């Protein structure tokens, strides 16, 4: 049976009379956006914490928006993405004095989706690398302490705090990732596997999933064409969009030159017994004149025509082994 729990991470840009805008430009654009995702068969919807007030404004409440999703074939809002990517005096996960404020801010986001059944509270566990370096064991422990606190809090509200690591973040190498997970409490802090981010950082996402299967609560299925071999991750003020030699890091699944072995990951997911949500993401699809609608079609085509085959192979092997 085809994998039904595919969700979509909300990154779209759409053309409006006022130029390129996110679909939250207005309700009509948002409705058209959701209808396009519906036509592709997505069942889950992930979004950023900063879109929640816009959603409330357009639909009356986040709950009402979820009803709109359900009217269009979705099951629910599956994840909320929260982040403090740039260190400030008040928000720096490696600085303990900022933790109370961050926890309070996370609490505000949690309250905005209270009463829904969002599963993942997805966080970037660190700020940019260059703002933390030198990255020490002690700093990683401080960051782990923060997310232990946040994780305990979100769990009390029915959501798992799950860490999404950026190639440009302070926790990026395999050693740093392992140390972070050793310092965090497996009851409160989970792993969110972004296939492109790990690949760019030179970390094998498949091996990460194998090693942290028990703590993995989700994926961003996205691709990259480039491994960062020249320390772009240290580029101030922002390596993601301002790296001097790489203008585009991320691609949708199914493009020529993609480095992530998605069929292998899909087989591993099936073999492992993981039964959670799989999320499609492809931020900055508009770079080079691209279209989010087309990128999403290409990714979903890849799911239905390539990953479905990998899934079936793995299921057949499991069946044969029984």
């Amino acid at each position, binding site marked *: 049976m085809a994998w039904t729990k595919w969700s979509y991470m909300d990154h779209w840009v759409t053309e409006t009379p006022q130029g390129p805008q996110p679909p939250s430009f207005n309700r009509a654009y948002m409705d058209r956006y959701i209808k396009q995702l519906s036509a592709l068969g997505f069942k889950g919807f992930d979004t950023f914490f900063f879109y929640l007030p816009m959603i409330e404004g357009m639909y009356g409440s986040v709950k009402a928006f979820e009803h709109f999703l359900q009217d269009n074939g979705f099951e629910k809002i599956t994840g909320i993405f929260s982040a403090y990517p740039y260190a400030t005096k008040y928000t720096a996960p490696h600085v303990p004095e900022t933790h109370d404020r961050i926890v309070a801010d996370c609490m505000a986001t949690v309250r905005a989706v209270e009463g829904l059944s969002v599963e993942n509270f997805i966080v970037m566990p660190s700020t940019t690398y260059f703002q933390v370096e030198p990255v020490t064991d002690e700093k990683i422990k401080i960051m782990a302490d923060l997310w232990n606190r946040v994780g305990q809090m979100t769990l009390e509200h029915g959501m798992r705090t799950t860490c999404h690591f950026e190639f440009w973040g302070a926790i990026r190498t395999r050693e740093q990732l392992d140390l972070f997970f050793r310092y965090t409490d497996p009851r409160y802090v989970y792993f969110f596997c972004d296939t492109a981010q790990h690949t760019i950082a030179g970390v094998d996402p498949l091996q990460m999933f194998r090693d942290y299967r028990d703590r993995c609560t989700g994926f961003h299925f996205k691709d990259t064409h480039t491994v960062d071999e020249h320390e772009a991750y240290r580029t101030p003020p922002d390596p993601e969009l301002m790296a001097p030699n790489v203008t585009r890091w991320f691609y949708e699944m199914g493009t020529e030159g993609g480095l992530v072995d998605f069929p292998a990951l899909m087989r591993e997911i099936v073999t492992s017994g993981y039964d959670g949500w799989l999320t499609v993401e492809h931020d900055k699809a508009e770079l080079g004149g691209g279209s989010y609608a087309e990128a999403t*079609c290409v990714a979903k085509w890849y799911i239905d025509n390539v990953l479905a085959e990998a899934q079936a192979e793995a299921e057949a092997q499991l069946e044969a082994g029984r």
Partner: protein
Amino acid sequence: MTDIRWGYALNQWKPQFDDFVRREQHERALKTVSIAGFEGVELTAGTGRWEPLGNPQQLIANFGSLTGFREFLSGCGIAAVSSWFYDPQQRSMEHLTPPYSPLVAADVTGIVTRAEWFAGALAQLGGSVLVVRAAPSAGDVGPLDDAALRRLADCWTAVGRATLAHGVRTALHVDFLSSLRRPGALDRLLGLADPAAVGLAVDTAELTVAGLDPVEVIRRHRGRVWHVQYKDALAADTDEEYLQPHAEYSVRQRGGSREIPRWFAEPGAHGGLVDFAAVTRALLDIGYAGWVVFESDQSPHPATSALLGGYLLQRDLRPVTAAAVEAAAR
């Protein structure tokens, strides 16, 4: 199961002659059409090196053979080329021939030869209909009197008989710039043409812009509907501006005196004038068997238009056809 097959026209991806040329662009468009829920694609006749999908010679040049192109389609999840749209007024660089007119008796042989060329390829690509522009723009050729209608009928009858030899039907496409929108003109033309050789391509938007009700046209010509194109209309040409000379540019492109920014949109677009559920029910009522091709020419965002068309198909139209099947089974 109904006998309707759903396709999508690729024309919206090619706004001008040097766009949509590279293989990866075709691949992404075809995958978009496939994943949106369509099984076939309609091609538009084109000429020259930047029209890789425009005619049999270019398909062979780009894909090695027609079989090679069919394999490319299949690899993208597309089962067939449903149809090819051919306007004889387009000159051909492959044959170095000038624009032909179906109103000119001396041009008929050339049109028939070209139609056979497309039909032969279509047959190999799984297609069944050559969609032809039935008449030139009204503003360029004046009113169609009985003699003119007879010349049109003779031309398309000859074409239809020739394409049938390849197993491909010829369907007349009536656009809103054509004098065939005038009362009685289409009836007369279909009456003069050989009913075994010539049918009608119902384009919901062109008819609506022309002030004709596509449901009424389907019912009126029930035995002659051989092809259908679903696209929405955002305005109607209520002032008969189609009669102006060069209306292709001043009316269709510029939008006429009201400067309509876009006459056409994907089926189900906000503000659209066509009731697609009603059109679908009308097709089911007449027992239509064949392709329904979604179109959104003039779309600035082809993938979005394809997905919104897919949404309408999946959410609203498939239930209409499913209900008809269920009712028939009772």
